[in-house]
């Protein structure tokens, strides 16, 4: 099946980002397709490449970028990003900033849409 993922919270502050990531890995392992990950609200903070993480902890933005490199679409809401200081200049590789219409597309083309948030 095709799964769309909506993430509404920033990394580290809430577990939403971790749960979404674990859910996506399990979905791919079972042969499902991830039609896209949409970052909304504070979720956009997942996609800054400026994170500087202690060596003993996971690097959440790098993890997303690596997933993008494997072909998973990473879409960052432009309006939410602007409010929170996320722009093209600080964006991780393999993600793109785009409009809310992309979330609508994701809802239309995915068999399931799963939301992770606070």
């Amino acid at each position, binding site marked *: *099946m095709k*799964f769309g993922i909506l993430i*509404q919270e920033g990394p580290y502050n809430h*577990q*939403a980002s971790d*749960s979404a990531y*674990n*859910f996506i*890995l*399990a*979905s791919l*392992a*079972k042969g*499902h397709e991830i039609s896209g990950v949409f970052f909304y609200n504070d979720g956009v903070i997942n996609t800054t490449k400026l994170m500087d993480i202690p060596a003993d902890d996971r690097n959440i933005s790098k993890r997303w970028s690596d997933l993008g490199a494997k072909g998973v679409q990473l879409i960052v809401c432009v309006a939410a990003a602007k409010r929170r200081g996320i722009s093209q200049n600080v964006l991780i590789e393999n993600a793109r900033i785009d409009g809310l219409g992309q979330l609508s597309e994701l809802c239309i083309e995915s068999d*399931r*849409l*799963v*939301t*992770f*948030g*606070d």
Partner: protein
Amino acid sequence: MLHIVNKSPFKFRNLDSCLRIAKDDDPIMLIEDGVYAALPGTTLDRMMKEALKTHSVFAIQADLKARGVDRIIEGIQVCDYSCFVTLVEKHVPYSWL
């Protein structure tokens, strides 16, 4: 419909809302701090046992372990992420944020 609850039922009323609206036989997936609802002998024990009469209730194993919840209410099913994915295959999910 699959009901996903990610908040501690001791601090938030999300689980109460979920149980009020959930249709009989709709499964309930406890994730993140939501797995604290699986603790036995709490003030919510009766509510959970009542819920188990009409719903399958699942709790993410990794979340239970992270929180040291090693004993859980009888009837609640421990579920890994793969089992969570299977539930999403079968049901339209809604997260009670």
